Every structure is written in structure tokens, then in C-alpha cells.
């Protein structure tokens, strides 16, 4: 038997024999009594005098912490940092937070129970425990029940412990030597570890560098903005001229924008307003006139608009005799081609809108030069 030993193990065949031996081993007061069993044995913790596991309290505390964390996190985000009304609920309405609070509570509590048990209470992983290298370990994880008297001080009497266990009915006795106490973290070991990490970093860095340098950057996934398409005012090799934007095919006409063959104003004089005189046409003409013409030609067409003073321009007084005598076609020509300072309005107005404005100008002229018959029509 070695001079210094960590513990003496006594092997038993049944749980009953183990339970019977525990009080005897404890009564001898030679050292700490610990049992090693293949599964949990009921009542052994009382027999060994172990304190109650504090795990329940730890889990309770962490569970409550989980609930508070989840609530605070959700409340801060949903009510303070990023308040959005969804489903008509106020930013601070907390009822919807309950499911996630529950899940986080369970998450915190479970990890405390599992990892707290393993790491904090049982101090695992621990691969250097002397029992793991004992002969008895094969039995411990199979079908043997082992009672250990573990040394508490240098003065451990391993022979006495072996005798006690034998007397208590152990079928086998094994003395465990004291574990190797040579320092684990020698300077040589630390140097080699750090050196290894450094070399690994260098190798990984070089590998990444050459991987990205030699292989083209692969893009297995594409974002939506990376799709093949034509962009306005950007080059494109899809067309021969290299432009992304193309001129319309010659002769293309947009709907409602049929060009009218109007040469000179005199030639246009013979054009006839194709629109019927209906309230709809009148309303359209009034709308377009108000939006496009009124600022210069004035609300009644007398050439006094809100912009005339500012620009110093002299727009035509549509109430002048010259324009009263104009045929419809000449007014239409002026709208399409512009006249003097007035630009062409063809790009803004559809065919129908142009003729509606002509109609409205006619109505304005007649309203300013009303005759007696007009009154009769109005009162009828």
C-alpha cells in the first residue's frame, strides 16, 4: 500500500450491502465517506449526511431573472426604443409579452438547472479525478456499488480505512494513490500552447488570404438589387448602342397624345372641335384652364393673370376682338405650338384636354360678351 493515498475504495455487490456499510464507515471517522454508484440510490444522501442540493433555489432565482429580463427587454424595445402601434394596441401594452417571458424564464431556469448542476455543483468536466483511473470505475458505471473513504489530511490511515471497509462487507478493496500534484500550468506548457495558437492563427489567416485571392468571390446567393435588369441612365451591353435607356421606335405615339397635322396657324383655321358641348367637357376644360392657363391669361381670359406682373409679360387678352374672331382651330394651334412667349402645351395636355380648353375659352368669351338671348337660356 503506498505511503500517501487519496482514498480507499471498498466494492459492494448490492445496494443493500452498500447502505449497511455506510454508517460503519462514517462511524470510524477516518475521512470523508463518499459512495460511487451506477445509478442514483434512494436515501443514500441521508445516509451519507449530504446537504440538500441548492439547485432548486438557484433555478428559482434565475427563472425570475429570466422573466424580468424578457419583460424589460420587450418593454424597452416595444414601448421606448421603437414604439410601433400594431393591431391597435398601445406601445406599452404588455399582454403580448407573456409568451416570450415564459419561454425565456424556462430557458434561463433550464440552463441553470443543467449547467449549474454540471459546472457549479458537480465541478464537471473534470477528467483528472483519481477514481476515474481506478480499477473499480468499470464496476461503478456498470453494476458495482463502491464506498470510498477519502483522505482529509496527511495523517490519513489507509490501512485502517481498508480494515473498516472489509469489516463492513466489501468484497474488494482498492487503495487509490494520491493524484499527481505536479503543476499543470508549467511555463513550458504555456509557451507551447500560446505558440500553437499563434501558428494556427497565422495558418488560418494565410489560408483565408489566398482563398480570397485565388478564387473569385463566389456569390451563390443574389440580393434582389443584384438582378440582371436595365437601369435608367446607366450603360448596358444588352443593346448595341450601349445605352440602358432607348428611344421609342420611330412613329410611336402615346395613347391620347395623337399629334395633329397642324402646319401654320392659317392652315389650322379649318380644324373643327370634335368634342360635343356637354357639362363634362366644360368641366374638363375649366379644370385644365385653371391649372395651365389662368396664371397668365387670367380667370376671365382678359390677359391679367397672377404671374403677369411678376414676369412683365403681356399675355394675349382673349377677350380682344382679334381673338373673338378666331376660329376654334387657330386657338387649338396656339395651344399645341405656343405663340410668342407662350410655350407649347402639347406635352402636358391630351388631345381631348386641348379641345376642352378651346371650348372653355369660347365660353369665357361669350360670358364677357353676353347677349340678351343668353339670359333667356340661363333662366329657362
Amino acid at each position, binding site marked *: 500500500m503506498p505511503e500517501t493515498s487519496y482514498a480507499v475504495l471498498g466494492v459492494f455487490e448490492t445496494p443493500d450491502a452498500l447502505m449497511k456499510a455506510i454508517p460503519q464507515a462514517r462511524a470510524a471517522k477516518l475521512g470523508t465517506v463518499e*459512495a460511487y454508484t*451506477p445509478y442514483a440510490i434512494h436515501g443514500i444522501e441521508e445516509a*451519507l449526511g449530504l446537504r440538500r442540493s441548492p439547485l432548486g433555489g438557484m433555478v428559482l432565482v434565475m427563472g425570475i431573472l429570466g422573466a424580468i429580463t424578457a419583460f424589460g427587454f420587450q418593454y424597452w424595445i416595444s414601448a421606448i426604443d421603437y414604439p410601433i402601434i400594431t393591431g391597435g394596441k398601445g406601445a406599452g*401594452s404588455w399582454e*403580448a409579452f407573456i409568451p416570450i417571458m*415564459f*419561454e425565456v424564464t424556462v430557458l434561463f431556469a433550464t440552463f441553470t438547472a443543467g449547467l449549474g448542476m454540471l459546472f457549479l455543483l458537480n465541478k464537471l468536466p473534470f477528467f483528472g*479525478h483519481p477514481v476515474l483511473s481506478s480499477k473499480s470505475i*468499470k464496476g*461503478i458505471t456498470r453494476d458495482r456499488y463502491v464506498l470510498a473513504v477519502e483522505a482529509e489530511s496527511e495523517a490519513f490511515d489507509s490501512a485502517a480505512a481498508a480494515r473498516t471497509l472489509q469489516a463492513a462487507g466489501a468484497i474488494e478493496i482498492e487503495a487509490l494513490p494520491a493524484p499527481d500534484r505536479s503543476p499543470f500550468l508549467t511555463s513550458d506548457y504555456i509557451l507551447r500552447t500560446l505558440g500553437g495558437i499563434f501558428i494556427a492563427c497565422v495558418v488560418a489567416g494565410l489560408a483565408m488570404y489566398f482563398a480570397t485571392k485565388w478564387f473569385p468571390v463566389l456569390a451563390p446567393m443574389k440580393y434582389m438589387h443584384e438582378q440582371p435588369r436595365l437601369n435608367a441612365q446607366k450603360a448596358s451591353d444588352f443593346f448595341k448602342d450601349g445605352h440602358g435607356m432607348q428611344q421609342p421606335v420611330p412613329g410611336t405615339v402615346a395613347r391620347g397624345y395623337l399629334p395633329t397635322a397642324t402646319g401654320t396657324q392659317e392652315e389650322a383655321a379649318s380644324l373643327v372641335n370634335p368634342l360635343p358641348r356637354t357639362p363634362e367637357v366644360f368641366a374638363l376644360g375649366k379644370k385644365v384652364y385653371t391649372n395651365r392657363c389662368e396664371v397668365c391669361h387670367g380667370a376671365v381670359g382678359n390677359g391679367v393673370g397672377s404671374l403677369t406682373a411678376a414676369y412683365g409679360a403681356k399675355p394675349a387678352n382673349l377677350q380682344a376682338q382679334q381673338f373673338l374672331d378666331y376660329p376654334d382651330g387657330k386657338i387649338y394651334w396656339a395651344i399645341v405650338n405656343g405663340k410668342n412667349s407662350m410655350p407649347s402645351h402639347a406635352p402636358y395636355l391630351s388631345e381631348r384636354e386641348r379641345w376642352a380648353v378651346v371650348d372653355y375659352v369660347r365660353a369665357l368669351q361669350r360670358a364677357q360678351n353676353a347677349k340678351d338671348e343668353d339670359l333667356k337660356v340661363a333662366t329657362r
Partner: protein
Amino acid sequence: MKPDAAILAGDIPEALIEPALTVGVVTPGSLDDQVLAFPETKPPKQWYIALAVTLTALGIGVGCIGYVFATGIGAWGNTSPVFWAFDIINFVFWVGIGHAGTLISAILFLFRKRWRNAIARFAEAMTIFAVICAVIFPLIHVGRPWLAYWLFPYPNQRALWTNFRSPLLWDVFAVNTYFSVSLMFWYLGLIPDIASMRDRATGKVRKVIYTVLAMGWRGAASHWQHYEKAYLLLAGLATGLVLSVHSVVSFDFATSVVPGWHMTIFPPYFVAGAIFAGFAMVVMVLVVVRETMQLKNLITMRHLEVMNKVILAMSCIMGYSYMMEGFTAWYSMNEYLHHGFMNIISGTYGWAGWVTISCNIFIPQILWFKKARASYFWMILVAVGVTIGMWFERFVIIVVSLHQDYLPSAWRIYKPTMIDFGVLLGTFGIFFTLVLLFARVLPVIATTEVKAILPGAQPSHHGDDHHA
């Protein structure tokens, strides 16, 4: 409360005595030799054949998912108004399969149902594999799975946060918690078994792997004390969790306004359905396991019979839920609900409704007979039927409700594509591949837990006053 004196004296009425949980003589040592020997032997030829089949299915699934990534989720049949189709059906289906494992490992543990010990390990493993299959679907359904991390609330340069009032976000938390907790539960249960395998191992590689995985477990009584406490706490927590997870999944539907979804019965109905489907899958796999791995003495006919009873009970709950759906539709006097319910039994997809009802309600009724509960033929028939039926139940809930809701102008018939079926097949491939691998590398039966319930495993209290 003091136990009855007569019972303490060993005078227990025969009806109360629990029959032995194992057949024949089983000792802790023989148990190890029987169960832990699998990973130490060469797999039989049949195992390779089965693995080839499941890997083929997995490969088809991976190919289909790759095709979806390359072309976009337009490769599926999903179209307005059925935007949720196979993805969510399969997600709910697989999450549901997982629930049986947690029920067996946690709820039956709390109820001190000792028969659970022999099947808990396998059922827990199936939970984890099923949840892995389930999470694939939301991830691929987002269309850009490489951006799926946007589901989590984390500080980002877009200055955006997730919406905590959305049940879909609740799902993210519920499913992630469920997976983490199941994994923790499973691993904690495995540690003592892995320690046994470590001490049996002969090969060097095997020894190193099991040594690391066992974390230096040495079976100390002081460790067992904390371990048992942790296991009990985990069981209690997982019980609440398993009920919450499928409830949260059902909120995806129940909190919406779609007729046929907006129902208060959904959470319990979904939980019952999940346990139902999961038990069917466990029975199916266990029958194969006990036959091919010669575990008949540990997974006895009595285990299967008890599981079949659970299936029967769940089937009755499902029947009640279906009737309540009809009753709610009728009693609400709401024509949209009427229409939705009539769609289930007589619409375009009426056949799916009847597959659901037949497989889930009618066929399992055979289990009222003890002979059927103890017959492979009937239990496999029921288990396969329930698996199909529960898949179609989710199809009915999701597709039938969505394809015709309030606006008739927005109605459309949904047709899945071959890619849809390929992805579904792929998840079955993943699931069974993992099951096969698990059966070869880890103990399929929780030997530690079974050792603890063998006759004579616990100290007898007669004539010994340490427990009085």
C-alpha cells in the same frame, strides 16, 4: 400523509402491484452487455440498406431545397391567397412529432410512470431530430435563409427591432427554447450512460470521444444528488414548455382573423394533436427497434400497449376537437365559419378532410380492443394512419382555411409542386438518417434509468430504519 399500514407491511392488493417492467432476468450487467454493445459491434447489412434509403431521401430533399434557393420560393405551389402551404404544414407536423418525446421524458417522469424509463431515450432523441426537421421550414420559407438571423432581436445598423406582438416571433423564441431544452435534457440523461460506454470502450478513438462527452462523470453519490434534482427540475420545466410550444404554434393561426383559424380551442387542440402524432411515430419506430435490435425483453409488449392507450385517448380528444369545430361553426351563426367548415367536409379538398377524420378518429378506435393493442399489424396500421392523418389535418387547417376566406374574388385552388413533395421527403430522410445514426453510436435505452427500476436495484427498507 402516512401510507396505509397494510401496504407498508407488504400486503398490497394484487390490482395495485405494477407488473415487472422487463421480461426475463435482467441485471445491471446484462443490461449493459445488451444495450451498450450495439455501438461496439459492426452494423448489420440491413442497417446499411436502411441508411442508403434514408440518405437517398435526404439527398432528394437537399436537391429540392438547393433548387428553391437557386430559383426562389416560386418553385413551390404557394400562391395568393395560400401563402402558407407545405412549409407551415410540415413545420407544425414535425414540431408536433417532437412533442411525444418530451411528454414521455418529462410529464410521465413527473407522474412517476416507471415504464417510461425504457423508451424515454429514444423518444427524446426523436424530439430533437423532429425539431431539426421542423426548423428547416421557417428558414427556407423566409426565401433568403442567409438572412434568417433577422428573426432575432439584436441591435443593428438598420435601427429596427422585431415586433414582439407577432406570434411568429413568439414561435422563434418557443422553438429555439424547445430545441435547447430538449437537447439539454437529452444530453444530461446521456452523461451517465456515456460514462458506462467510456469504461467499456476498447478502441482509442472511441475511448477519447466518450471520455470527452461523459465530462468525467464518476457516479459519486454527491453528484447523483444534484443530478437527480436537476433532472426533476428539468422535467417540471419541460412539462410547462411542451404545453407552451404547440400553444404558441397554434397562436400563429388563432390570433389571426381567418375563418377556421380564429378559435380559442386551438392551443389545447394543437397540443393534443402533437402528442397524438408523436406517439404514433414513437410506436412505429419502437416496433422496428425492438425487433431489429433484439430489445424485446426491455421494450415489452406492455410498453407498446400502454402507448397505444395514450394514442386512443388522444384520438378521442381529437374527435372532440373536430366536433367542437363543427359546433362552433354552427353555433356562431357566422356564414364564413359555416362555409369554412363545409369546405372541410365537402369542398374541393373535402377528401383531405375525410382522410383526416378517418385516420385520426375512426381507425384508432380499433385500439379499444386489447388484442389490437398487442398486435403489430393493428398498431402499425394505426400509427401510419395517424401520421398521415395528422399531416392532412394541418393541410386542412392551413390550405382549406386559406384558399377561401372572406373575399370570393380572392379565392384560388392550391396545388403543390413536385418540389414541395421533394422537400417533405427530404425531411423524412433527415429524420430517419439521424435515427439510424443515433441507434449506432449512442445507447438507445437509458441504461442508467432502467438499472434504477430493476428488481432489487433500490435498497430494501424492511428492518432498516434509515428511511422511517
